[in-house]
């Protein structure tokens, strides 16, 4: 009984998740460029790790391009390999 309710998403403590959308698919003007560290900074943590797409909602195609751009950006010291840990 209880289980059924949880699966349907009903009940008091139901977990509601908004559908995430890829930011690059929505905005065509938004480009993934390794020369623009400001744009890439939104997709890395303070530690400098690449944020997984299950969290950012980026589509697979763009996540591939994004991770490549971040790695290239790190190579020429525009982004850190290891950032400062959050205080």
């Amino acid at each position, binding site marked *: 009984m209880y289980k059924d309710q949880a699966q349907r998403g009903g009940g008091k403590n139901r977990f509601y998740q908004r559908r995430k959308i890829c930011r690059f698919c929505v905005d065509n003007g938004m480009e993934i460029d*390794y*020369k623009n*560290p400001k744009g890439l900074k939104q997709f890395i943590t303070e530690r400098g790790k690449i944020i997984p797409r299950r969290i950012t909602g980026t589509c697979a195609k763009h996540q591939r391009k994004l991770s490549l751009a971040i790695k*290239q950006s*790190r*190579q*020429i*010291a*525009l*982004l*850190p*390999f*290891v950032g400062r840990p959050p205080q």
Partner: protein
Amino acid sequence: MRKYETVIISDPDLQDQARTELFDKIRNVITREDGIFLYLDDWGNKKLAYEINKKLRGHYTCLTYGGTGGLVKELERNLGLNDDVMKFMTILLSTDVTAQSLAQEAKDIEDAKTASEAAAANVDDGEETEKDTGQEQAAPEAETAEPEPAEPVTSVQN
């Protein structure tokens, strides 16, 4: 032929003259290896995300050119030998470009540059007499006509 882009981080304490010499040397490598130099984008001194050679700042320059894999190899070898170059990275932009299309692109860039310079000059002299602006409008046409003889030279290289 392929189109490449190389980002070069050079010593921030380098004098202007030494830097122009460095990039003249790099351009010589490109022409020597039958490459086509497209343009050079100077980003200036920037803070580095991490230390390179115990330095926290670097002078960024982005170089775009067309050439073959051999050119990239030779260019990177030269960059590695140079002490003023702290770090560099080459990126492949496109694989299917011909010498003609690159020459055309180089020409377009030059045309755009002269056009923007002429436009800037027009803005500066905007308040002067009509006679002056008329002369300047004629000038860019003469300038755009100039790069055309460059094309047959590149086709000979083919």
